[in-house]
């Protein structure tokens, strides 16, 4: 966790929940755990405010709490730092659900995201009362909801343990892996009654069971998309289709977040699955060739490990994300230092260790240019230098030393990831600044819009409306458009930046042993 990430989290939380929550989260970010009174004294906020902020964060599953080791009755809070950035991905989550389950699914997901976590009944109630999808019946909502649970997009949050000394103890949760995805019993009749006002939500039987979106499942989908896209770009559509079949087969036996490589899969299994589900004749005809194509490719997505069942394969996540993350690093270098620098970077990566002189020969770049590029890369921490000192020298003259260029892959990726965090923070900061700078103007236009709206509803004459609209002068209009454009560009950049961040995070998950935000059934 870097300072850049701390800034980013802080500004994300401010954007989503306001300044009180931001202050509380900042305080939690800098410590492993804190108690309520510690937070109060650090933030100088009222105890009530802090408690409310914590409640919000807990509802959004950004804070966890545990009883203190020394005092059973004192809860200690800690921030789930890695999850904060997920707040920025909400639009992507909704978009994914939209493509998979249509508008009904999207409104369920939106509801769950807006509230953090919710019971099934109240979620469906809110969706139904929402204006957009009146046409859909409660039945469709229920089926979609249950289908999303079955597909692991919605997960049950741990249930509260009800014990005898509930009043004093820190609440405990019972998390049972087996019933994360057990579908709830949603009473449609009761739902109808509540909507008519004949019953209250308190009478629903599922009051204790709270659901929320399972971000890991979404991330799994995003990750698979990255891999499929890479194969499609390199080896064509049919190969990508083949790979997506392999992926779906793999998930039957493998935890999707297994770090290094998946479990085994045999050729026969792949063939059977494809014969059953695919209509791509080309794929069926040349299946063995496509598989060997993916296996032999330098991306290294698939690895052959044995001959059982016509050939045993594993998906090599470690190799795959190393290739992809470095493809990303390389394009960053190309954009920043030029294609010659990328060549130097690749030479070093390929040779592992290389001296300056050999570097320029291998890369076929004149000595001076090669030197300057390599030193620039070194200065920006894309490459590193290993010094090997020859022992001795005996005090007469400097000891002989060799300076070898190398790439510490994890450090490079980490550096780039921090850069991404910083850039993302910059976009948020800049767009806040733009909004503040032209606050008066934006508010004015909003006011005007609502006035015009009401006037139209009232049926006032068009001339009168036009007169009102004209109070917004053309120069003002121009500035407003400019600001709106700026904000639009910035928010688009936020989304594309997150793609890079996600890819590099996947590298960290699959290629290192660092703790990452992803845990099975978190």
């Amino acid at each position: 966790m870097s300072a850049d990430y701390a800034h980013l989290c802080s500004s994300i939380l401010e954007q989503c929940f306001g300044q009180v929550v931001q202050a509380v989260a900042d305080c939690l970010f800098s410590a492993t755990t804190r108690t309520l009174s510690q937070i109060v004294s650090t933030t100088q906020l009222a105890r009530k405010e802090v408690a409310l902020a914590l409640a919000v964060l807990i509802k959004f599953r950004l804070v966890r709490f545990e009883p203190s080791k020394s005092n059973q009755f004192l809860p200690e809070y800690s921030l789930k730092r890695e999850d904060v950035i997920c707040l920025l991905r909400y639009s992507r989550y909704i978009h994914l659900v939209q493509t998979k389950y249509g508008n009904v699914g999207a409104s369920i997901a939106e509801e769950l995201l807006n509230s953090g976590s919710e019971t099934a009944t109240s979620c469906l109630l809110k969706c139904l009362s929402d204006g957009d999808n009146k046409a859909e019946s409660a039945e469709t909502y229920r089926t979609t909801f249950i289908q999303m649970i079955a597909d692991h997009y919605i997960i049950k949050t741990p249930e509260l343990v009800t014990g005898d000394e509930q009043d004093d103890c820190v609440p405990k949760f019972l998390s049972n892996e087996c019933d994360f995805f057990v579908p709830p019993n949603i009473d449609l009749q009761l739902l109808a009654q509540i909507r008519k006002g004949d019953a209250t939500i308190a009478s629903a039987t599922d009051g204790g069971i709270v659901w929320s979106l399972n971000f890991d499942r979404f991330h799994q989908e995003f990750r698979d998309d990255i891999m499929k896209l890479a194969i499609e770009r390199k080896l064509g559509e049919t190969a990508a289709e083949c790979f997506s079949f392999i992926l779906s087969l793999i998930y039957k036996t493998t935890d999707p977040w297994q770090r290094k490589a998946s479990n085994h899969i045999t050729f026969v299994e792949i063939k059977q699955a494809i014969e059953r589900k695919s209509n791509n004749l080309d794929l069926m005809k040349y299946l063995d060739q496509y598989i060997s194509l993916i296996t032999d490719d330098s991306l290294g997505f698939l690895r052959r490990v044995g001959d059982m069942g016509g050939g045993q394969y594993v998906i090599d996540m470690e190799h795959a994300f190393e290739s992809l993350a470095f493809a990303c690093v390389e394009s960053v270098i190309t954009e920043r230092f030029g294609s010659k620098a990328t060549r130097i970077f690749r030479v070093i990566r390929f040779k592992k260790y290389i001296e300056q002189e050999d570097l320029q020969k291998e890369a076929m770049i004149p000595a001076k240019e090669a030197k300057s590029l390599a030193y620039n890369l070194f200065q920006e921490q894309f490459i590193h230098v290993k010094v090997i000192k020859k022992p001795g020298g005996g005090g007469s003259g400097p000891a002989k030393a060799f300076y070898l260029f190398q790439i510490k892959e994890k450090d490079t990726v980490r550096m780039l990831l921090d850069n991404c965090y910083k850039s993302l923070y910059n976009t948020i900061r800049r767009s806040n600044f733009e909004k503040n700078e032209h606050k008066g103007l934006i508010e004015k236009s909003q006011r005007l819009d609502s006035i015009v709206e009401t006037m139209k509803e009232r049926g006032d004459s068009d001339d009168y409306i036009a007169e009102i609209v004209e109070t917004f002068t053309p120069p003002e209009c121009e500035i407003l458009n400019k600001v709106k454009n700026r904000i639009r560009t910035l928010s688009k950049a936020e989304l594309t930046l997150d793609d890079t961040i996600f890819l590099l995070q996947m590298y960290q998950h699959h290629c290192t042993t660092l703790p990452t935000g992803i845990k099975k059934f978190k």
Partner: protein
Amino acid sequence: MAAAEIAELLLAVIQGVPGGATNDDLTKALSDVPAASRVEGLNVLLKQGGIEVLKKGEKLIYRAKDPQKKSALPKDADNEEKIVYSIVEEGGNKGIWIRDIRIKSNLNMTQLNKILKNLETKKLIKAVKSVNASKKKVYMLYNMEADRSVTGGAWYQDQDFEVEFVDVLNQQCLRFLQMKREGAEKKRDGPLAFKQMSCCTVKEVHKFISDLGISKVNLDEDDLETILKTVVYDGNAERILQSDGTYVYRAVNLPLPAPGLVQMPCGICPVIKNCSNCGDVTAINCQYMNDWLD
């Protein structure tokens, strides 16, 4: 017997022993010649340059010199010149540095300079500038083709690396690989056949480049292999090992589209390290960002 006759006899004996004759060989073969006149005869041979003396362990070995090599040096050359010449000759096509000649020959600097200049004007040796260190001159025999490590091979004109030439070749090689790939795409014989057809050997590329006639210098296949490697290092091609130990090359696409980071100024910002909430570089007053947003 006169010294010249003894010398001739000695030469015959020495030429008879392929690896060079030791003193024992000579005593055995010419047992009737006294040691003193044998030494005299050897001296005559050494003076003429017919033989050379080598040291093997503790023993001295006399070896006959190739008469053709000797002929390059004119008869009137003096001893110092001969020695310097032979040292330069030993240097082969890699050349030898003047400092090393001085140490080996034990001559002083002024004398050595004079001799070297002398030999150069007679076109017996030449000075070649090394590409690795522009101020370092190395000497080698006049008719010797300088080694690649000295001249830098085809990529150097005098001491300058020809960037444009390399770039043009790089582009042409890539174009060839891509043409090959496009050609293979048109035929629909399954993915593996496609892959094999898009692969090129160095030989094919060599032929293509020679036919293009863009190079004034003669390029051999090794030269093109280094160029092809740069195409691989640019990420535009792949190098695939064949079962017979040779490599083939094929054009490939990058697996990822341009990452989001470089689509905004922060990704390519040269001062991102200094960027923070305070100070001169901030997101609010950033010129790069202003340019991008407007």
